């Protein structure tokens, strides 16, 4: 299925993304389309939220809220922006609120303990030694701490840029700021990360 399809809207041909099409079907009472949207964006939203709050349970709780809000808004949904822009705007808003409300304190705790929730990447590798695993875990911990230390908006911008491969314009729409502000946020964020992670080369 193509990501972008042409849809005739009120006589004028408008480019509408496939997700927005699905959401319009949800609006018309098609529950199955909501299932398709959930399947498509579930991991992406949970992973983004996980990297924002750095706590798996909190991230999933927030992601549930994101999709619940999407479902609740079906009646008033209008495809004025790309669906993922809207989706990540809700996710970012909830994540920033959660961080402000102190749920990140739990994520600090999370950073101090060895993770059972982290993906066992080493399992996929060719059985690294205990020492290699420890080194890798320490490096990963450093990356997580460096990202966690970024100001909230810079962190959100980096996560969308790096892991969601969003363009500056879309990040700007999600964060409700100008494109040049996004460029500035990203540059400062990467400079901070560079200073903190340079020794890992």
């Amino acid at each position, binding site marked *: 299925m193509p990501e972008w399809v042409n849809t005739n809207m009120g006589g004028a041909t408008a480019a509408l993304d496939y997700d927005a099409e699905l959401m319009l079907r949800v609006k018309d009472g098609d529950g199955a389309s909501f299932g398709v949207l959930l399947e498509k964006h579930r991991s992406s939203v949970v992973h983004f939220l996980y990297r924002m709050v750095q706590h798996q349970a909190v991230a999933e709780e927030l992601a549930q809220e994101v999709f*619940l809000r999407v479902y609740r808004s079906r009646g008033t949904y209008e495809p004025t922006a790309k669906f993922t822009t809207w989706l990540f705007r809700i996710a970012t808003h909830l994540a920033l609120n959660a961080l402000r409300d102190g749920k990140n304190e739990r994520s600090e705790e999370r950073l101090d303990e060895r993770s059972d929730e982290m*993906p066992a990447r080493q399992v996929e590798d060719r059985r690294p030694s205990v020492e290699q695993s420890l080194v890798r875990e320490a490096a*990963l911990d450093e990356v997580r701490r460096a990202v966690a230390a970024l100001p909230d908006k810079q962190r959100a911008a980096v996560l969308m840029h790096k892991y969601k491969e969003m363009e500056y314009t879309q990040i700007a729409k999600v964060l409700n700021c100008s494109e040049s502000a996004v460029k500035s946020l990203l540059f400062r964020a990467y400079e901070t990360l560079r200073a903190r992670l340079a020794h890992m080369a």
Partner: protein
Amino acid sequence: MKCPLETREDKEILVAYGSGALNAGDTKLLEGHLQTCSRCREFASGQRVVWEALDTWEAAPVSADFDQRLFARIEQDISWWQRMRGRLGPLIIHRALPLTAVAALLVAGVLLDWSPRPKALPRATTAQVEGLQPEQVVRALDEMEVLNQFDRLMKPEPNQPKM
């Protein structure tokens, strides 16, 4: 090429280069510049380190019961709304209309009460009618009789032939 680190607007080129998002033409230009500029070279290599470090950070897989929990919440949401509608439905049908009518009447009454009216005139008229005494009525009728008589004197007789 002008050093990207010298101009604020061009710094993003280095970020884009580090993330592999720079187009082929700009990449060629920047790589030419990197050969001569140690600051930019240092920045670009640092950016590459950051990028690779971030690549190692994988997120945990989503819980298997994520959808189940979500649909349960949606179901709860819907059943809450249906419960509310179930409770409010009969109330709306049997009571909303009379209540609306009463409310509309009250609003209309309040609006009428607030509408500007000439105050002195009706009160004065009513006061005059209410204050009329029987003697005044008799006197008024007498005066009307006098006026009628005067009127008859002034008018010529209809059957009197003209000269």
